[in-house]
């Protein structure tokens, strides 16, 4: 059984700052594995350990995704090897384009039985890549996956649905998006971290993949944000909690908030 774990190496927006003109300054944001990817890696790792499967990491993106630290960070979390497609043209690629490249990378690997992804990427958070990728591959897509067990051809998948859990049996290849809390990722041990550099990390040129040309071109042409309302600066400085609460309620009513 061969499992692909699609992951993203990117910066956390919480570490970025917004400039006055609405553009984002990423210069002080440290790149890392996208927040929910370690959860997907843990889920995939458990399945691979149980099924004796090969676990291959795949990532696509702009400059930096091929840095040795990016591969080592991924490889220290139980992956057997990684395939990286680093190309500056992918730096600002949309979800469809990234999914198309991922699909070709998965075809390039060959013999893949299952693709697992994180819930969403920390930077874009569109939750679209797994579904578009499944469409590209012609496979079913399952989101909010909380557990997966079994073997190639007979996977048992649990997914969170409102108010409960849905259990699915999947006979063929599929794309699964792990829910954000599907598993608690293991902290990598020091030996795993130091051994990561010895595992294979293959950098593949984008031109080596036959990615079909995309359709419509989508470009961000403007940004705006709602104007901030000036704060009223009302201070409730009453020692008695009940009186303070009454004062707060009265102030909220006066402001039309209640």
């Amino acid at each position, binding site marked *: 059984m061969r499992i692909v774990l699609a992951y993203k190496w990117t910066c956390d927006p919480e570490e970025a700052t917004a400039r006055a003109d609405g553009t984002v300054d990423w210069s002080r944001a440290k790149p890392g594995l996208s927040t929910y990817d370690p959860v997907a890696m843990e889920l995939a790792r458990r399945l691979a350990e149980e099924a004796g499967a090969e676990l291959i990491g795949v990532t696509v993106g702009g400059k930096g995704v091929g840095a*040795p*630290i990016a591969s*080592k*960070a991924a490889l*220290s979390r139980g992956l057997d090897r990684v395939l990286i497609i680093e190309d500056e043209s992918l730096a600002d690629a949309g979800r469809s384009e990234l999914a198309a490249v991922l699909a070709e990378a998965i075809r390039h690997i060959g013999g893949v039985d299952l693709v697992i992804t994180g819930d969403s990427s920390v930077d874009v958070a569109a939750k679209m890549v797994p579904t578009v990728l499944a469409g590209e591959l012609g496979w079913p897509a399952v989101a909010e996956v909380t557990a997966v067990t079994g073997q190639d051809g007979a996977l048992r998948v649990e997914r969170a649905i409102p108010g409960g859990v849905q259990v699915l049996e999947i006979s063929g290849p599929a794309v699964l998006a792990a829910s954000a809390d599907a598993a608690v990722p293991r902290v990598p*041990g*020091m030996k795993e*971290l*130091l051994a990561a*550099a010895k595992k294979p990390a293959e950098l593949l040129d984008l031109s080596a993949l036959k990615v079909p040309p995309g359709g419509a071109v989508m470009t961000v042409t403007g940004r705006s944000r709602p104007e901030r309302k000036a704060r009223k600066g009302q201070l409730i400085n009453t020692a008695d909690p009940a009186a303070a609460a009454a004062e707060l309620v009265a102030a909220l009513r006066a402001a039309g908030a209640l």
Partner: protein
Amino acid sequence: MDFELTDEQQLIRDAVREFADTEVAPIAGELDRDHRFPYELLPRMAELNLMGMPYPEKVGGAGADYVSYIIVIEEISRACASTGIILSAHTSLATWPVYKFGSQAQHDRYLPDMAAGRRLGAFALTEPGAGTDAAAGTTTATLHADGYALNGSKIFITNAPHADVYIVFAKTDPDRGARGMSAFIVEKDTPGLSVGEAEHKLGIRGSSTPPLYFADCRVPKDALLGQEGDGFKIAMQTLDGGRIGVSAQALGIAQAALDASVAYAKERVQFGKPIAAQQAIQWMIADMATQVDAARLLVYRAASCIDNGRPYSTEGAMAKLFASETATRVADRAIQIHGGYGYTESYPVERNYRDAKITELYEGTSEVQRMVISRSYLR
């Protein structure tokens, strides 16, 4: 000159920080309040290969460089200074002399278990009448036909009574002073070895430091580490490395106090704005951050001397002197920034303040560090 950590050092820092934030920090306050040894953290640290960081994989260690090991102590201490010193004492003070001075048989018997964290180590040098003047110890080791008999007492022994292996210093020739001191590996259940009541300390309350008593404590001849008379040299060389561990502990405490202060300054509102908007607070934060960064450079430089096979005694002493005094000063400023709340257990800075002081005292007081540094300049 490259001030960047290697990929591995960055990844190790991130992983240990994740462990410290999720598993160590949440119980640090309780360990302190209840004077409780963190039993549950030791198997976890062993699982993550943190108990033998700088030792080769072939003897059970993680095979990491010394800078990485120091980063581990820093990050653990940032969450809990008690756990930091438990790990540092085990690695630098107990495992290191076995690794450096032990025979092949001693390596085989102790290193795999100690480096993998299956057996915890302790270092027993200080005595009631012999602290800074370590050579003044009166514990004796008398040679008999079948081994040595140890008699005397030790105090402030980090990791006792939980340790499985003790590195004990005793006089085999009391008339020769420092040259009459020898080092022994003593196992915990050896008859004649007993452990006294734990000290009630100002800080690092999760780390136990009771006295040890030796009453005709018989150890075999092959418990001798190195040769008879090597004890003082073993102790001093061990402390040269140990104090880099303490400097990393101090650095972690200082960083924790700085982090807490930055967070508090941004959220605490007085006069209608966060106190971070006040220049008085900004200047304190600026000074604290600069001192912490300077301490980090000294600490990492000392560790990199070990990695590069260069002498590190003076560099280690400078790192410990500066980092420990920085920890005390930064923790003091952190309480000042927190105001009255900083004096309560509601915020961790009061613990940082109490934990910081010991780093100026153990494994060589600040005065000893100044002696070591000045001697290297005034030779």
